[in-house]
């Protein structure tokens, strides 16, 4: 039974994972090909409590993931602080460049809606709202409504 639980846990972790892009150029390519906006999320996955909260309440929910897979390109810029979560040097540098361009105030979590060329359509922080409300809010920044 223990093993079964482990297997279930593993499988569900796999299927629950948001399909995050980590490369800005790839995200822009995909956005152009599929004609979707980019949702860029700045987070500190191992130190920023509000980010963890937002992940649980929005990004990891079935409603959001299902919708996002069809309508958005999800791009994550993570800034972990623990040694064992450290990203590759190139990824760390790429994320720092993204932060310099789109999050120069340096607060987390921070969500930036971008068009396929990387122009800012809108910005949001954490809100205590449902995934559906959040989707509506994101869409109000684009012409998806």
């Amino acid at each position, binding site marked *: 039974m223990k093993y079964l*639980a482990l297997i*279930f846990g593993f499988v569900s972790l796999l299927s629950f994972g948001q399909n995050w892009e980590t490369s800005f150029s790839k995200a822009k390519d995909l956005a152009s090909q599929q004609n979707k906006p980019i949702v860029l999320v700045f987070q500190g996955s191992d130190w*920023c*409590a509000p980010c*963890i909260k937002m992940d649980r309440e929005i990004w990891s929910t079935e409603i959001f993931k299902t919708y996002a897979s069809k309508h958005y390109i999800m791009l994550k810029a993570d800034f972990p602080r623990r040694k064992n979560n450290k990203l590759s040097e190139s990824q760390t540098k790429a994320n720092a460049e993204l932060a310099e361009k789109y999050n120069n*105030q340096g607060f987390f979590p*921070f969500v930036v809606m971008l068009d396929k060329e990387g122009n800012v359509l809108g910005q949001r922080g954490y809100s205590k709202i449902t995934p559906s409300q959040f989707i509506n809010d994101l869409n109000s920044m684009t012409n998806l409504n």
Partner: protein
Amino acid sequence: MKRKEFLKTLGGAAAFAVTASCLGGCSKSDDSVTENPVAGLPFSIDLTDSSSSPLATNGGYIIVNNTVVARDLSGNYVAATNLCSHEQKRKVIFQNNEYFCTEHGARFSLSGNGLNSDASAGLTIFQTVLEGNILTISA
């Protein structure tokens, strides 16, 4: 153990991380919904980041996410909305150990009480929690 229970145990650690750092700050935001004056909260900043450098000094402040984050003259981190209650201008800064609206001069104490007539409606104050170099601001 059922699958749901198992997943719950997985979520426990994350839930603890959130509640432990929020302290009393979360309960208020949990009750509020969409168009609240505290949208965008809670959020965290890294005090070692160059954008936070004014906070290294007592009396220093930054404006981030429509919030005045300051280090008062006693060395405590304090935060408030930058939206002045006088004429709804986002012009509140930190000066002389109090919040000050540069538009018409409304002055608010660290606890958000008005210190002159333009400030009679008070200022919304936020809670701050410092963990290491991470400052989290919540409603």
